[in-house]
């Protein structure tokens, strides 16, 4: 949108961009700029990306603060308030707006009367934690596999490539459903703590499965990048100087990959938030009554006609989180790799 042909051209001449940006900012020093700062300058110019960053930051702050607020007793996602419901209607909230009041700014759940805001905030904490952990593991594992495959080539590349094919061919959702009970029991047996209401072990299972089935695309992407990087002179130089394999992998090649990785990571987060929500639909993951964005939405969807506000608020918030992360990822990609264009 805001990136035009001039940006594309200007990228080929970094000094020119520097001068232009500095002139705009009214500064005169001629200090060189790192690629990260260049990217950040480009990112800041994109209003939509900046808006997405602000929204994302708010959600992340909410997610960080909600366990503290829960401890302080400000949030209360578990207490029933049947007194706020009308028995004659089958225990739907009083009033037209899903029981919105000062004490319950987002209303209460029908039939049980739990505070919707508390459930959404705590749900965001759990969902974002799961998505973050799963994204980190996915990217880390995919990167290592991709670098090794791309750099080594030959039979190692072939083996990793076939493992990727095999993983992609697995019916992931079916596996997830079929194995959930067995796998969770196994995890408990090897000593993964249960956590409150089994949240740790069930959350860990989701993270594990998302990562196991999420790494192949990362590995493929990285392998492709490494295939070009390994032909560059500085890699040859490192080899000639007798650098060890790990050093070449992580000190020489990895620093050249952070741009695609960051982009992939920011796009993976929203995908995993919605994946967690979808898995909740299928009854896998964090157990009742611990809230996640997924199981709150799962419950709310049925009330689209019966109690519109109870449906609308969680749906809108999850949509906002996913869209904000997606736009953030898009913005990051544009800023880091302006040649890609839009």
């Amino acid at each position: 949108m805001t990136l035009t042909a001039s940006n594309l051209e200007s990228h080929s001449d970094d000094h020119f961009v520097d001068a232009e940006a500095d002139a705009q900012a009214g500064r005169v020093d001629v200090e060189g700029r790192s690629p990260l700062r260049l990217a950040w300058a480009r990112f800041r110019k994109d209003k939509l990306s900046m808006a997405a960053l602000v929204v994302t930051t708010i959600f992340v702050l909410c997610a960080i603060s909600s366990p503290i607020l829960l401890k302080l007793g400000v949030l209360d996602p578990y207490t029933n308030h049947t007194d706020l419901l009308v028995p004659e209607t089958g225990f739907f909230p009083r009033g037209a707006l899903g029981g919105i009041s000062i004490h319950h700014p987002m209303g209460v759940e029908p039939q049980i009367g739990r505070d919707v805001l508390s459930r959404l905030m705590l749900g965001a904490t759990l969902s974002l934690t799961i998505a973050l952990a799963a994204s980190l593991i996915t990217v880390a594992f995919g990167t290592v596999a991709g670098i090794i495959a791309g750099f080594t080539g030959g039979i190692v590349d072939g083996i990793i490539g076939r493992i990727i094919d095999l993983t992609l061919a697995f019916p992931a959702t079916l596996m997830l459903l079929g194995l959930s009970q067995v796998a969770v029991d196994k995890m408990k047996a090897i000593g993964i703590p249960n956590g409150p209401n089994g949240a740790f072990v069930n959350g860990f299972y989701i993270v594990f499965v998302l990562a196991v089935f999420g790494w192949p695309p990362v590995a493929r992407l990285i392998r492709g990048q490494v295939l070009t990087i390994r032909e560059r002179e500085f890699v040859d130089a490192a080899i000639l100087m007798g650098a060890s394999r790990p050093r070449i992998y992580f000190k020489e090649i990895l620093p050249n990959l952070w741009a695609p990785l960051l982009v992939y990571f920011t796009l993976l987060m929203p995908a995993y938030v919605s994946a967690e929500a979808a898995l909740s639909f299928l009854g896998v993951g964090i157990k009742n009554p611990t809230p996640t964005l997924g199981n709150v939405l799962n419950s709310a969807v049925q009330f689209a006609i019966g109690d519109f506000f109870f449906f609308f608020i969680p749906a809108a918030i999850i949509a906002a989180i996913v869209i904000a992360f997606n736009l953030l990822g898009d913005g990051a990609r544009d800023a880091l790799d302006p040649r890609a264009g839009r």
Partner: protein
Amino acid sequence: MGTNRKRLVAAAASMVVAVGVAGCGGDSGSGSGPGDQSSQTVKADVPKGGTVFSLEQSVTQSWDPQRTYTGRDLSNMNRLFSRGLVMFPVGATDPEEGATPIPDLATDTGQANEDATQWSFTLKDGPKWQDGKPITCEDLKYGMSRTFATDVITGGPNYIIGYLDIPQDANGEPAYKGPYTGEGQDLYDKAVTCDGNTITYRFKKPWPDFPLAIASLRSFDPYRQDQDKGAKSQLVPFSDGPYKIDDAGWNADTGGTFIRNDQWDATEDTNRQANPDKFTFTLGVEAEVVIDRLIADQGDDASAISTRNVTPAQFPQITGDVAARAVDFASPFSNYLVPNFNRVTNLQVRQALAAATDRAGYSAALGGDKASKPSQSIVNPSTPGYVANPAYSADGKPDIEKAKQLLEQSGETLPYPIKLTYPIGSDASEKAFAALKASYDQAGFDVTLDGLDPSGPYYDTIQKPGSDSDLIWGGWGADWPSVSTVIPPLFDSRINIVGKSSNGQDYGNYKSDAANAAMDAAAAETDLDKANQMWADLDNLLVQDVAYIPLDVSQFYFLRGSNVENYVNAASTSGYPDLGVISVKDGGK
């Protein structure tokens, strides 16, 4: 105990899927919601013809009389194609009338000897099978004998094995092994005899309400030996009633169509009205979709019925003309919790659990009065002999303070950890168990909700005596209107706890010699009033031990299409729509 498992699977489902166990009785005297039988009127002379469509989510486990144990299917079978010696009257809206057997294949409701250990019935002349052959005393005798083949004929009620006067072999099992092996056939022939058209049953203990059992269950119905393919006959109905399965047969996953049976004689069987020309069953329709289609009332769905409950989320849509097509009816099923006696050994902890149980919150989460009412006993109010136990309040509110005190006195470390195992089902049931957890946690427990799939690991888990569940959900309906089909099947440790492999339906591993003795005494009592008093005393004993904690009585909340007429769901069909009287507007023209 494998035979009884299916019935319980169905019972669990009744909470959310509305397919219940065999239950007779079920009244509306206790104030059902709007649109109960007061609006249900039965007309005797209605236009014949048309097709009634039945939209269901859950499949029919069995159409085999000796293997069926699901309330909906037992009721439908009797109205459509499987006749018994006696039956409950069709379209009986009065609970008393609906639970009183009338003759069907027999000329009267049976002759008993003085102590009810011997019953005789005389067959009518005239009833025929769908191929035109008459129904004989031998067919009746053969049908019941199949129950003894416990390796082939599984899943059905097996009361007859406990009652019929057949000696036991070395393993404590009946010496008669069913008609397929023929082992011990002479013993069976002695216990059940045919004298012309008169069949006589001899029992080893009194069975005063035997006709109620015949009318409620289908395991005493006749069966044709030449049609019997053993286990393969499970979904192959062979009719002696007004309808038979069409040539396409029954598909286990999708259903089938019943058409008129031309060998059935309306002048001989005056009980069943048999109004529509066809009944078409469609299975596997998703729960919410069933209700959405019935609300929309389009095309064939206007002539449709279902035993799917309206979910709480859909309550606001049941207004205006849709409300006129809805019926809310107290079901014959009651739900309860049992503490695991192998783990929760401290009586004061169990008492604290009982005091802290939020039955009101549980009911509210299921949708309140239209879906569930807090109960005060494990016995359903529709069962004769029901007494509301004074230990449990009518409003179902928990007494948190009392629970806290009891827990403190118990000397256990707090918070006391509890693993509550329950069947996962709907969003509403998840909320219901969350409501229970909330009040337990307030009282000083630390509850972990352990939801398991009722068609998967749920029953396997809770039927293991060594299970690590502390509190277990159960649901039950009387097999016929008597407390003797409620308390002994659930709490008699002698019939339930078999070795170390299974605890049967005694999920809490409750063992009490006093209770077992009281059950024997009450079951042998032929004076009904005295027996009822004995059952009530026994219920008190169970409550004092906290052998169970009552939760709620399920309500049926059914919808039907606008062209469906003569729609009754009453005691005589366990609260399910009575297909014996149902009709289509103007005969479907």
